[in-house]
């Protein structure tokens, strides 16, 4: 995938934090703590590029997506869209920016209003952003959008329940495309789909990216899907990015123990590799984000843990002997997936 990569990022995130308060009491609510869903992350996104965000449930990847859309307001930090901080914008200025960042949600069953026709769903963004499509041209635009995502434009008056899961996800994508955004946040867009349908939707994402020069934030837990579609990948654990790099750096030369464990845990659809895989079995579960471990958050499950890990939080920096940033005091490259997979 040759991304036309300009020097200016379309989106840059600095020190993004989201804490959800935990309260006690009904009348006199007092805050007793906070779920640190996202706890200080930085990344850049360039035009036409796909940034994959992977991690297990509760790592903050979906919250990150919601923050970029400003569906939730960040507790701290800045989100620069073409150099302008949109984290604190409001009113008209915000509305103008928001047009450029759209989202495609995971569940095509609950993210479409069952009482609206497909035409209404895909055309609804035009009612809010009237300047994008003058009234007379809306129907035509909606039909074009349906065609772009591979649906029959004649089905414009049908309701969501008349479509299959894959088709519904296409409707969601058409809605996301309607305002011709520069960035689409894809939050687990294929995880509810069957393998045979999933491939169709992934191809559609790639086609649209080439056609419209879209930048994607692709949030998913399926590592092979992320690998296929992403130019760069960030791995999250408990609200932090633990490792980031291009697709080959993360998948072939992972340096953070968590990345290595995550990759090695993915079952490979090839029975000849059974028993030959270098599988790292992690103990226990992810700790609660309301009370993350001190120092390195992965230390409670890490096999390399030393005293320093509990005291000093490792920064996400390029460490000695590495070519990409890793947040581990003892980062070292260890290839865990067989790259010589038979073709």
């Amino acid at each position: 995938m040759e991304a036309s990569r300009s020097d200016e990022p379309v989106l840059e995130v600095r020190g993004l934090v989201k804490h959800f308060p935990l309260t006690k009491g009904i009348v006199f609510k007092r805050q007793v703590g906070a779920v640190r869903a996202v706890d200080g992350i930085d990344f850049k996104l360039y035009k036409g590029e796909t940034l994959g965000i992977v991690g297990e449930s509760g790592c903050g990847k979906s919250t990150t997506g919601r923050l970029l859309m400003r569906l939730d307001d960040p507790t701290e930090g800045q989100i620069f869209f073409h150099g302008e901080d949109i984290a604190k914008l409001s009113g008209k200025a915000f509305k103008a920016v928001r047009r450029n960042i759209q989202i495609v949600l995971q569940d095509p069953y609950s993210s479409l209003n069952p009482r609206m026709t497909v035409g209404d769903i895909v055309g609804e963004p035009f009612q809010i952003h009237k300047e994008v499509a003058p009234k007379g041209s809306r129907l035509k635009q909606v039909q074009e959008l349906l065609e772009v995502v591979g649906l029959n434009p004649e089905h414009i008056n049908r309701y969501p329940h008349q479509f299959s899961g894959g088709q519904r996800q296409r409707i969601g994508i058409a809605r996301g495309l309607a305002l011709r955004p520069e960035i689409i946040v894809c939050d687990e867009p294929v995880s509810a789909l069957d393998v045979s349908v999933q491939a169709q939707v992934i191809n559609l994402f790639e086609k649209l990216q080439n056609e419209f020069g879209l930048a994607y934030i692709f949030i998913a837990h399926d590592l092979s899907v992320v690998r296929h579609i992403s130019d760069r990948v960030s791995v999250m654990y408990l609200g932090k990015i633990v490792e980031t790099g291009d697709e080959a750096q993360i998948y072939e030369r992972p340096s953070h123990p968590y990345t290595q464990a995550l990759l090695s845990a993915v079952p490979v659809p090839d029975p000849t590799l059974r028993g030959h895989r270098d599988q790292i079995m992690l103990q226990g579960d992810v700790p609660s984000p309301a009370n993350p471990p001190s120092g390195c958050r992965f230390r409670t499950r890490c096999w390399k843990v030393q005293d320093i890990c509990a005291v000093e939080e490792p920064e996400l920096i390029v460490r000695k002997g590495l070519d990409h940033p890793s947040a581990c005091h003892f980062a070292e490259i260890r290839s865990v997936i067989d790259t010589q997979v038979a073709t």
Partner: protein
Amino acid sequence: MSQDTINTTADNRPHDGDPNAPVLEVENLHVEFRTRDGVAKAVTGVTFDLLPGETLAILGESGSGKSVTAQAIMGILDTPPGFVTQGSVRFRGVDIQALPEKERRRYRGEKIAMIFQDALSSLNPVYSVGYQIGEMFRVHRGASRADAKTKAIELMDRVHIPAARQRVNDYPHQFSGGMRQRIMIAIALSLDPDIIIADEPTTALDVTVQAQVMQLLADLQAESKMGLILITHDLGVVADVADKISVMYAGRLIEQARSLDLYSNPAHPYTERLLAAIPRVDMKGQELYTIKGIPPNLTDIPAGCAFHPRCPYAQSICSEKTPPLEVVPGDRRSACHFWKEVLDGSLQIR
């Protein structure tokens, strides 16, 4: 229907002694759902057997009938709307389908146990996990409360739940997803069944936890020689654990083979296309192979081969004649008119 696969132990004589006889033989199983929108043929003529200690994966997409097959074997189908219309399920030679419910109950849990996908909704939120594990001993074995609890703690230890003694009185919501699935496994294991049917046991779990749970199942299986039927859509998990794979599509078994054979050289176009659709390293930057269209609606399964509208190799015979599940060299089966050509790769994509 596939006549060739019929095993002639039609009588209800348990086969004793022979340790290598199949523990479970499912033969020509048909299940339909009678709904307002018509009759949905969820399972059509499914036949397979399971040897002691063997892991059989039933692979299929949503709506392929894999879970319904499991429910029919367990005898926990919702009736109505679901009805077993034909076929037999034999456990060590005894047709449990024909048994009266009272007797059948003895098989359920004691001989064949099941693990469900969603542990949170399968466990009862208002009873402690210890109570729910112990229930198996109280109901099936008439154990006292105190004994049942001791057994529950033992089982929790066996599935590696830390601090079992302290946690036995906790409720399901106090456990993480992976731990809840372990509790489900503990319940299934409690009476030392010969067969465990696991219906998407790790689909709701994260990969690192999935790896732990699959490892646990493999260890337990090695300890106790249970047969395992793993129902899943995940081609990765299957490749990791299955000895034998049965692929289902639109309610039928369309291919059956040992794992290595199935992955290296599928004998049915659906399997072949499904494997091709997985994103893989060498496909980076290229378009993924897809299967056009969507799986059929079970109330309206296409005539002939159910896969023909989506099959890249389909010819006129495919829409006319339903291909039987034929025996293919190498101890495998395929329900495709052109399995020979699929195997040697000589078919041209239309």
